[in-house]
């Protein structure tokens, strides 16, 4: 993708661009090694690692490059003048797709602190529970009297500090739930752990037979394992998606006393005159006061064709200037720009989004009160029946320990870890916790056209109909411009092995095309109206030689890799596929026919897309929206679940649940399949956990559960659930 048409302006209303820009200015002042990070969605093997590291090391100025295959990224230490763009180019030469990551936000997650902390607690709990288990086995094997008491006391000495350290995540979470008078899964967990420790201490001090120190530790260990898996899949994916850097830093060239000066976009005021060079993005809404050009509005409106722009015409923030430098006078800045108003649409759609209850939450809602009531009832029942506080408390603790959601705590994370890992290897980042569950329910898929199904770059389609001379001439003219159509001509003609004709006096007429002299005759390549041809039908550029009839070079949008496969596979899976685009009716119809999509909506405004999706949602349909532009963000938010490509605008990526890291669309269909399989496994896991509770709970309530039975039941159910998760297909 050309850098001129890559998205970049941050449209997230919450993020203030000013500090980022300021930090950048400060950093550029220092002359020390810079740390760069690249996302490499397509690496997968040992060969890739060494190829990438070797190629990066060859780039002048690079000190050290290290690939992380687990996170699919490379960190590079280099001299300050090395830019991410040059590294990306070097990798693209050897066939690896690369995206820049924001080094600023990266430093926070470089070594994933929260994950490391959880792993530490997990390790401590694991080692402690092994030691205590060793002592407990001796007790179960028949140690009695003073030996048993000694073993219990040693267990207590190990268990108490361990639980105080390792149990903290649960204590914190339960406390924050209780503070707002709510119950979450962690409340019964904490209650079980605390009660187990307290009754065991009491029993031990009275030289009792049963102590549950091993159970309390095993519980902490298994639950922390679930928590850690959960963290790995979710937090890492989320931060990785957020780190995909804004491809352009929000800076602008303001004309001050006749000279352009670079300032942060946040400092622009109404009335400022701003110079926007070809390839640059409009930082504000404004009016053109000097210059002619063409504007790429695809990210805002979905139009694939550049529009002509000249003095007096209004421009919107986010549009890309293509051919000539223009000066604009700002009419709206910051929050008032059309870019921000578009972002407000997202906020509206957000508030309308029905809150999805995840399977785990649904289970917890049933589970937490049930467990508390059950254990309170057994406490009361035994207190009334035996009149002995100690027995009653022991049995209540046993009930809580037996019912404690070890298997439930692992049921969801074990499966989502397996599923997210599979999808990550295919180049998909699952950002949202419940995205997989929602994806499994999808019955309708809505695609955006420009930038999603198409790569956003046009492709020359009628080169075969051209004479060799015309092609050679067009190539010569096309090389005088950076316009996307010119580049498409140059690429296609060069690929056909034709060399450019010799021309003199080649120059670009911004907004219209390029012209030159060839063998004494004037030749032009550009807009239909400019060269005097008839009306345009579809996307085309016209070549005119002297007084001869102009000939048309016709273009079609280039399909993104895997677009056809994805649409076909989704249709085969029985899902309805719809195309919605802001582009012209003819372009959208062509695309729909090319991909075999029956239903399509053309010239859709951002609000139309969101409204249509909301209507489908109200009809009970579960919509998956795939889109990349600002005009899609509201629709992405309104949909049941949403996917955006890595090349999408920040706002679109923030709004979507899943980010496609690579340029290939085919993983979308796989993802739907994997998600369906994952949800099936999660439900199976819940059933396994329930069956185990049905067997074990009556034993505990009847007072027959011993620490040995509790340990066996807990471990076996946790292991069954984890093994079941590994059966995941896809």
């Amino acid at each position, binding site marked *: 993708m050309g850098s001129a048409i890559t998205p970049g302006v941050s449209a997230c209303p919450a993020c203030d661009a000013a500090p980022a820009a300021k930090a950048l200015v400060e950093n550029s002042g220092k002359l020390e090694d810079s740390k760069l990070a690249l996302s490499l969605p397509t690496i997968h093997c*040992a060969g890739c690692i060494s190829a990438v590291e070797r190629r990066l090391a060859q780039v002048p100025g690079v000190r050290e490059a290290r690939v992380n*295959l687990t996170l699919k990224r490379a960190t590079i230490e280099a001299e300050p003048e090395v830019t991410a763009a040059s590294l990306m180019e070097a990798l693209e030469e050897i066939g690896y797709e690369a995206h820049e990551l924001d080094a600023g936000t990266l430093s926070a997650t470089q070594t994933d602190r929260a994950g490391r902390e959880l792993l530490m607690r997990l390790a401590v709990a694991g080692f402690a529970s092994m030691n205590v288990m060793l002592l407990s086995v001796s007790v179960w094997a028949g140690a009695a009297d003073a030996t048993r008491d000694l073993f219990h006391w040693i267990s207590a000495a190990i268990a108490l500090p361990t639980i105080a350290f390792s149990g903290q995540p649960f204590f914190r979470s339960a406390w924050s739930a209780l503070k707002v008078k709510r119950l979450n899964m962690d409340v019964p967990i904490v209650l079980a752990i605390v009660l187990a420790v307290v009754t065991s201490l009491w029993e031990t001090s009275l030289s009792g037979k049963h102590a549950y120190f091993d159970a309390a530790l095993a519980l902490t260990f298994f639950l922390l394992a679930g928590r850690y898996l959960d963290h790995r899949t979710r937090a890492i994916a989320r931060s990785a998606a957020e780190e995909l850097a804004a491809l352009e830093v929000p800076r602008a060239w303001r004309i001050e006393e006749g000279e352009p000066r670079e300032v942060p976009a946040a400092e622009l005021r109404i009335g400022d005159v701003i110079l926007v060079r070809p390839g640059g993005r409009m930082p504000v809404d404004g009016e053109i006061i000097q210059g002619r050009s063409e504007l790429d509005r695809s990210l805002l409106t979905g139009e694939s064709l550049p529009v002509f722009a000249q003095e007096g015409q209004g421009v919107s923030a986010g549009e890309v200037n293509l051919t000539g430098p223009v000066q604009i006078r700002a009419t709206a800045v910051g929050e008032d720009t059309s870019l921000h108003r578009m972002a407000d649409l997202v906020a509206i759609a957000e508030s309308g989004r029905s809150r999805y209850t995840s399977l785990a939450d649904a289970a917890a809602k049933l589970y937490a009160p049930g467990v508390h009531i059950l254990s309170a009832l057994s406490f009361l029942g035994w207190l009334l029946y035996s009149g002995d506080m100690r027995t009653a408390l022991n049995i209540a603790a046993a009930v809580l320990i037996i019912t404690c959601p070890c298997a439930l705590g692992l049921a969801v994370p074990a499966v989502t870890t397996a599923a997210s890992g599979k999808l990550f290897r295919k180049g998909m980042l699952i950002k949202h916790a419940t995205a997989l569950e929602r994806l499994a329910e999808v019955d309708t898929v809505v695609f955006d056209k420009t930038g999603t199904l198409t790569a956003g770059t046009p492709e020359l389609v009628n080169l075969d109909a051209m004479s060799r001379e015309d092609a050679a001439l067009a190539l010569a003219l096309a090389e005088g411009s950076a316009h996307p159509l010119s580049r498409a001509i140059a690429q296609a003609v060069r690929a056909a092995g034709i060399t450019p004709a010799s021309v003199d006096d080649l120059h670009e007429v911004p907004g219209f095309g390029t012209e030159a002299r060839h063998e004494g005759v004037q030749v032009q390549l550009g807009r239909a109206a400019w060269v005097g041809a008839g009306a345009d039908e579809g996307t085309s550029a016209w070549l005119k030689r002297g007084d001869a009839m102009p000939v048309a070079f016709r273009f079609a949008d280039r399909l993104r890799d895997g677009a056809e496969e994805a649409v076909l596979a989704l249709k085969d899976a029985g899902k309805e596929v719809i195309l919605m685009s802001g582009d012209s009716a003819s372009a959208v119809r062509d695309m729909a026919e090319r991909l075999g999509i029956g239903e399509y909506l053309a010239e859709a405004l951002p609000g139309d897309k969101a409204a249509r999706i909301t209507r489908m949602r109200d009809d009970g349909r579960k919509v998956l929206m795939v889109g990349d532009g600002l005009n899609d963000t509201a629709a992405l938010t309104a949909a049941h679940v949403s996917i955006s490509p890595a090349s999408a605008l920040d706002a679109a990526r923030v709004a979507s649940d899943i980010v496609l890291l690579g340029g290939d669309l085919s993983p979308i269909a796989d993802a739907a399949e994997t998600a369906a399989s994952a949800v099936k496994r999660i439900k199976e896991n819940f059933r396994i956990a329930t069956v185990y509770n049905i067997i074990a709970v009556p034993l505990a309530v009847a007072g027959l559960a011993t620490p040995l039975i509790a340990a066996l039941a807990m471990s076996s159910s946790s292991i069954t659930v984890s093994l079941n998760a590994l059966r995941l297909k896809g």
Partner: protein
Amino acid sequence: MNILTYLIPISLLLGGAGLAFFIYTLKTNQYDDPEGDARRILSDEYDDKPKKD
């Protein structure tokens, strides 16, 4: 049963040594890229340094 006075401290010590070793591996970033490390052993280039922090 006097043997216990030796065995229990020994078992605790061994467990503690295991834990200490694990903490060392954690602190030296050895779990940052498990997948990459598994593949790197297949590479011919000699490369034994873990990622710098």
